[in-house]
C-alpha cells in the first residue's frame, strides 16, 4: 500500500517535469539520424556533398536496407540508452538533493527502501516507455523510406533485441542512483555515466566485456561487429547482481549516512 503511494508520488513528480518530455524527444534524434544515414547510403552522391556526415553514414551502414537500419538503431539505442538511464538516475535521485527536497522526504514516516524501490521502478517504466517510443518512431521512419529487405522475422528479431537491451540497460540504473545519493546531486551520476561508457568500451575490446556490466549492452547491440558472440546468461547474472548491489548501496546510504543537505 505504502509502495503504491510512493509510486504515485514519483509518477506525479516525473509527469510534471520538463525532462519527462525532453528525454524521449532528445532520444528521437537516434532514429532520425539512422534514417538520414539510410537516405545517404542509398544516395551516394548526397553523401559526397554532405562531407563528414556522409562518410560516417557510409561507414556505419553498409547497405540501405532494413537489416542495416536495425543494426544502426540498436547500436544507437545501446549507447544512447546508457546515457539516458544515467540522466534518469540523476533526475530521480540527484534532483532531490539539488532542489533541497531530499530532507523533506527523508523526514517523513516512509520506508527508505520503499523510496528507493519506487524511484527505480519509475525509472524502469520511464525507460521502457522511451524505448517503445524510439522503436515505434524508428519503424515508422523506416517504413517511410521504403527500404528493401523487410521480413516479419527481421522485425521480431530487432524488437526482441531492443527489449533485451532495454532490460539490460535498466539493470544499470541503480549504480548511478547510488552515486546520486552519495554525491547528493546531479553531477556525480552524470559524470559516472560518461566514465562507465568509456570503461565499457575499454573492457569490451579486452575480451572481459561479458563480465563488465557497462560492456554488456554495447556488446549486445552489435557494436563489436557480427563476429563477436552476444553476451550470454553469465553476463545477465552480472547485470542483475549489479542492479541488486546498486539498490542495496542506495538504501544503505540513505539509511546510514548523514543527510546534511
Amino acid at each position, binding site marked *: 500500500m505504502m509502495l503504491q503511494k510512493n509510486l504515485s508520488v514519483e509518477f*506525479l*513528480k516525473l509527469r510534471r517535469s520538463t525532462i519527462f518530455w525532453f528525454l524521449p524527444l532528445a532520444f528521437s534524434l537516434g532514429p532520425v539520424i539512422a534514417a538520414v544515414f539510410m537516405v545517404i547510403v542509398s544516395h551516394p552522391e548526397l553523401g559526397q556533398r554532405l562531407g563528414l556526415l556522409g562518410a560516417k553514414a557510409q561507414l556505419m551502414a553498409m547497405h540501405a536496407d532494413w537489416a542495416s537500419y536495425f543494426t544502426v538503431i540498436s547500436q544507437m539505442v545501446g549507447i544512447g540508452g546508457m546515457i539516458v538511464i544515467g540522466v534518469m538516475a540523476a533526475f530521480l535521485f540527484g534532483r532531490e538533493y539539488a532542489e533541497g527536497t531530499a530532507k523533506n522526504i527523508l*523526514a*517523513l514516516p*516512509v520506508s527508505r527502501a520503499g523510496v528507493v524501490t519506487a524511484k527505480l521502478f519509475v525509472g524502469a517504466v520511464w525507460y521502457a516507455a522511451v524505448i517503445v517510443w524510439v522503436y515505434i518512431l524508428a519503424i515508422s521512419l523506416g517504413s517511410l523510406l521504403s527500404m528493401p529487405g523487410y521480413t516479419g522475422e527481421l522485425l521480431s528479431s530487432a524488437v526482441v533485441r531492443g527489449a533485451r537491451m532495454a532490460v539490460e540497460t535498466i539493470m544499470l540504473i541503480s549504480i548511478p542512483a547510488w552515486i546520486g545519493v552519495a554525491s547528493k546531486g546531479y553531477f556525480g551520476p552524470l559524470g559516472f555515466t560518461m566514465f562507465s561508457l568509456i570503461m565499457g568500451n575499454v573492457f569490451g575490446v579486452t575480451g572481459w566485456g561479458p563480465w563488465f556490466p557497462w560492456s554488456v549492452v554495447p556488446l549486445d547491440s552489435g557494436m563489436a561487429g557480427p563476429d563477436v558472440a552476444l553476451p550470454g546468461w553469465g553476463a545477465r547474472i552480472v547485470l542483475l547482481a549489479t542492479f541488486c548491489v546498486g539498490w542495496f548501496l542506495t538504501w544503505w546510504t540513505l539509511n546510514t549516512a548523514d543527510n*546534511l543537505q
Partner: protein
Amino acid sequence: MIERGYQPERRAGNPPALQAIGLTKHFGPVRAVDGLDLAVAKGEIYGFLGRNGAGKTTTIRMMLGLIRPSAGRVLLFGNDVARRRTEAVRPVGSLVETATAYASLTVRENLEIQRRLTNAPPESLERVLSLFGLRPYVNRRAGQLSLGNKQRLSLARAVLHKPGILILDEPSNALDPAGIVEIRQILRQLRDEDGLAILVSSHILSEISQLADRIGIIHRGRLITEMRPEELASSVLGWEVSVSEARRTAQLLSDRLGLSAIQEGPPGRLLIRDPSIDPALVARLVVEAGIGLSLLCPVEEDLEARFLRLTREEEK
C-alpha cells in the same frame, strides 16, 4: 509575558512528547552537538535559541532521523528515532532550514505529495490552504512563489497531517513582519487547539521570546540554560540610586542590609549589583537617614545583552 491560552497545569503531568537524552554529534574532531538534554511537553512551545552554527540544525536533523547521533538518543512520544524511525516520526511535522518544494509542481501538488505519504485525509489539504493563506496560489508552480509564500507552503506541509509534534527550524525565514506575526498566531493556535508540542529554533531573540513558553539556549553544541521567556526579556541586573551623599548611602546600605556589591558611579550615583534587594526598603532607609533621594530605578539588561553574556560566559 505568558500568552493567553497557555495552560501550564495541562502540561504538568504529561510525559514529554519530544525528548533528547545526551544527544551528541561529532563531525570528525568537531563536536557539533555535545550531550544535549531537553524535553518538550504536549501543548508547549519550546524556543531553541542559538547563534548561527551553535548546533540547532544538527540537533533538529537528529530529532528527525536525518543524521545519526554519535551518542545519546531522541524519543518522540517514547519511540526511539534511531531504532524505530518510521514509527517515531509518524506524528511529526517538520521544516528543516530553508523552505524547499518541487519547483515544477503546483502548490496543490506539493501538498498532495505530503498528503499521500502521510496518509492524511483529502480535506486536510483545504484546511492548510486556508490556514496559511495559500488559496490564491493553489495552482501556481512552487518555483514561481515568493520566498515568503514558499515558507508558508513548507509550514502548510508540516502541519498537513495534524502532527502531535512540530519541529521547525527558523520558520520565520523570508517572512515579512506581518507574516511573522501571522505564523506566530497560527503556531499558538495549533498549541492551544490541538495541544501540539512545538520546537522552534531561531537565532532571532525577539521572535523566540514572543512565541515560546520555554526557551533553551544552545551554544557550541551545548544547552547552556533553559528559562521562561519573561526571564530572558526582563532581566534586572541591579539598581541605580541617585542620592545627595553617595558615600554615606553606600556605608548605610552596607551596614544595614549587608550589601557589598555597591559601586560608585558618577558623583551622587550608586549602582547596587544585587537584583534581589527590596527597593522600597532601600528608599525608606535612605530617606530616614536624611539623605536626599532623587532616583531609584532598576538596571535592566536587554535581550541581546543577556543572550551575549550567557554565550560569552559559556566560552570562558
